[in-house]
C-alpha cells in the first residue's frame, strides 16, 4: 500500500472520530505547548536581562566598585556577614578610582541599597513610591540619560548641595500637564522643597517596571536628606567593552592601596561588571532549562501512553476491518503502516496544535503580562520532533499487534 493511501486512511479514521482523536492528542498538545511557552518566556527574559535590564541597571560598558557583589541572590549567610563588616564606599573611593582609570568616560557615585521611596508633590498632585537616587554628575553619562527639557545635574549642584532635582519622565508626566513645563517649578519631595532642573527622556518599561519613575538628587543633597546608604556604588563607564577588564584591575589595585590592604589580605570591596548580573541570571535559567526537559518528557510519555492505549482500542474495534483487509491481500507491512501512519498523524497534529497554542499563549503572555516572551525556532523544531517521535514510539506496538492478527479469527469477531 502506498504511503499516500495510508495517509488518506489515517485522515479518514481520525476525522471519523474527531472528538476521540482530539482527546488522544491532548497530552502531546499540552506538553508541546508547555515547552514552547516556557522556552519562549525564558528566552524573552534572557534577551531582556542581558540587554535592556543590564543596560538600564548598570549602564553600557560599565563596571562598578561596590561594597558587595551585584549578584546578591547567590550569596550564603556567611558571605553576607562578611560583606556587612566591610567599610562603606565613599566619595574618596570614587576619586581613587577616577585617578586610577583616567581613560574612563565617566566615574560616578550613586546611592544604593536601601533605595529610599518617597512622596513627591506639585501643587495638588501627589505621587507616591517614587525611587530616589543620589548621584554625582557623571552618573547621567554612565546611564546615557538625555534631557528632554532643562539641564543635567552638575558638579556645582553636588558640591554646593543645591536643592535641585532631575525628574524621570513618568514623574514629570504625572505631576505636570506638560512635562516640559516642569523645569524651574518647585516640587516637594517628602516635604523638602526642590527646584526641578531637568526632565529625563523616557527609557521605557519592561517586566511591569518603569525605568522612568525616579528622581535624581545631587549626591550631597541626597545624603543630607536620607543619610548614607549601605551600598553606595562607584560606576565607571569605559570607552569600549574591551577596556573594561584593564580598568577593573587598575581600579582594584588602587582601591587596595587606598584601603591599606596588605598583600594576601582579602578585598574589603567588590569590583563587578554587568556580566556578574547576567551570570546570576544564567545560573537561574540553567536550572529551569534542566527542569523543563524532565517535565516535557513526563508529559510526552503520558501523552504517548494515551495514544498507545487509544490505538490499541482502535485496533480492537477495527479487528474485522483488519481481517478483511488481510483476506483481500494486505501484508503485515501494509497493516502496520496503516496504523503507524494513523498514530503519527495524530501526534504530528498534536504537535502542530501544541506549537500553535504555545505560540498563541506566548504571544498572549508577552502582550497581556509584564513577562517578555520570544518564540525560538529550535524549541518549535524540538517540540515537533519530540511529539512525532513519541507517536512513532508508542504507535509501533498497536500497529504491529494489528498486523499480526489472524484473518480468519479477525473476521469472526463481532
Amino acid at each position, binding site marked *: 500500500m502506498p504511503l499516500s493511501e495510508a495517509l488518506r486512511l489515517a485522515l479518514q479514521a481520525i476525522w471519523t472520530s474527531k472528538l476521540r482523536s482530539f482527546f488522544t492528542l491532548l497530552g502531546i498538545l499540552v506538553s508541546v505547548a508547555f515547552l514552547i511557552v516556557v522556552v519562549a518566556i525564558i528566552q524573552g527574559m534572557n534577551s531582556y536581562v542581558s540587554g535592556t535590564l543590564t543596560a538600564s541597571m548598570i549602564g553600557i560598558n560599565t563596571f562598578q566598585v561596590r561594597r558587595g557583589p551585584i549578584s546578591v541572590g547567590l550569596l550564603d549567610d556567611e558571605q553576607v556577614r562578611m560583606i556587612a563588616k566591610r567599610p562603606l564606599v565613599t566619595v574618596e573611593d570614587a576619586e581613587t578610582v577616577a585617578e586610577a582609570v583616567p581613560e574612563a568616560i565617566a566615574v560616578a557615585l550613586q546611592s544604593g541599597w536601601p533605595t529610599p521611596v518617597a512622596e513627591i508633590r506639585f501643587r495638588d498632585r501627589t505621587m507616591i513610591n517614587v525611587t530616589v537616587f543620589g548621584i554625582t554628575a557623571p552618573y547621567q553619562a554612565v546611564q546615557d540619560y538625555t534631557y528632554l527639557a532643562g539641564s543635567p545635574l552638575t558638579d556645582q549642584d553636588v558640591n554646593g548641595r543645591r536643592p535641585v532635582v532631575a525628574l524621570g519622565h513618568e514623574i514629570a508626566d504625572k505631576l505636570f500637564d506638560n512635562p516640559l513645563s516642569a523645569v524651574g517649578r518647585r516640587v516637594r519631595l517628602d516635604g523638602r522643597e526642590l527646584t526641578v532642573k531637568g526632565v529625563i527622556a523616557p527609557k521605557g518599561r519592561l517586566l511591569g517596571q518603569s525605568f522612568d519613575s525616579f528622581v535624581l538628587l545631587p549626591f550631597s543633597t541626597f545624603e543630607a536628606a536620607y543619610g548614607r546608604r549601605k551600598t553606595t556604588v562607584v560606576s565607571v563607564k569605559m570607552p569600549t567593552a574591551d577596556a573594561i577588564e584593564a580598568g577593573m584591575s587598575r581600579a582594584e589595585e588602587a582601591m587596595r592601596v587606598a584601603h591599606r590592604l596588605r598583600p594576601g589580605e582579602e578585598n574589603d570591596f567588590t569590583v563587578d561588571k554587568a556580566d556578574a548580573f547576567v551570570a546570576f541570571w544564567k545560573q537561574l535559567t540553567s536550572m529551569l532549562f534542566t527542569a523543563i526537559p524532565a517535565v516535557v518528557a513526563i508529559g510526552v510519555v503520558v501523552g504517548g501512553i494515551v495514544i498507545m492505549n487509544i490505538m490499541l482500542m482502535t485496533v480492537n474495534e477495527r479487528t474485522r476491518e483488519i481481517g*478483511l*483487509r*488481510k*483476506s*483481500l*491481500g494486505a501484508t*503485515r507491512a501494509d497493516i502496520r503502516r496503516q496504523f503507524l501512519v494513523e498514530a503519527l498523524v495524530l501526534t504530528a497534529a498534536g504537535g502542530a496544535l501544541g506549537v500553535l497554542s504555545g505560540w498563541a499563549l506566548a504571544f498572549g503572555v508577552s502582550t497581556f503580562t509584564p513577562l517578555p516572551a520570544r518564540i525560538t525556532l529550535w524549541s518549535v523544531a524540538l517540540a515537533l520532533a519530540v511529539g512525532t517521535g513519541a507517536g512513532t514510539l508508542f504507535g509501533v506496538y498497536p500497529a504491529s499487534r494489528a498486523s499480526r492478527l489472524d484473518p480468519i479469527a479477525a473476521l469472526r469477531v463481532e
Partner: protein
Amino acid sequence: MSALIRIRDLGREYRMGDERILALRGVTLDIHRNEYLAIMGPSGSGKSTMMNLLGCLDTPTAGEYWLNGEEVSRLTDDALARVRNREIGFVFQTFNLLPRATSLHNVELPLVYAGVRGRERRERAAAALDQVGLGHRMDHRPSELSGGQRQRVAIARALVNQPSILLADEPTGNLDSVTSDEIMRVFTQLHAGGQTVIMVTHEPDIAARTERVVVLRDGQVESDRVNRGAAA
C-alpha cells in the same frame, strides 16, 4: 492439462487446550480451471475449514496444497497475503464490506494492495461493478444497499483483480430465495465467462446449479460426483 488446485491428504487440526479437533482428515482433490463446484455437507463437517485453506487464509497441519503449480501450504504470512491478492477472490456469507466506504471504494480494496493506482484502479473497480449489474450504485454505502446488492458488491470485489478462483462460503446463506436466485445467476454467468467457481452451500437446489458436488462428512470426502442435470 494439470489441475488448478491439487490437494493431497490435506489435514487441519485445531487444538483447544488439551482437546484436539480434526476438522479435516486427509482430503485429496483435484479441481480444474473453469470448474463450477459445490461443497456440501452437514454443519461441522469441515466445509469452512476447507474453504479457508483453499483461499489461503489458513495453512494445513498436514498434506499438500498446490495452487497453479505452486505449493502454497508452507508459505509465510506475507507470501500468503500476496497469493490471496493475486489468485483468490473470496465471497463471504456476511458480505464483509467496509461500512463507511462506497461500493466503488470497497471494490477498489484488493487493487490497493496490488499496487494499482489512481485512475486505473477506479476504472477497473467500476468495470467490476458493471459486471455484476451495479454500475449505477458506485457511490452508495453498504447501508444504502439491499442484501442482494451488497453481496454483488462483494462479488465485484472478489473479481476485480482477476483471480484464478472465486471462492464463496455460503454466499446466499443470509439472503431470501428470490435474492439467492439473483446471486446464483451472477455466479453462473461468471462461470460461463470462464471463471473457476467453488461454493459452499447446504441447499440442494443451489448445489444443483453447479457442475460438480463434493460432499464432506467428518472432515473427509464422502462423495464427489459430476452433476449431470446442470451441464446444460
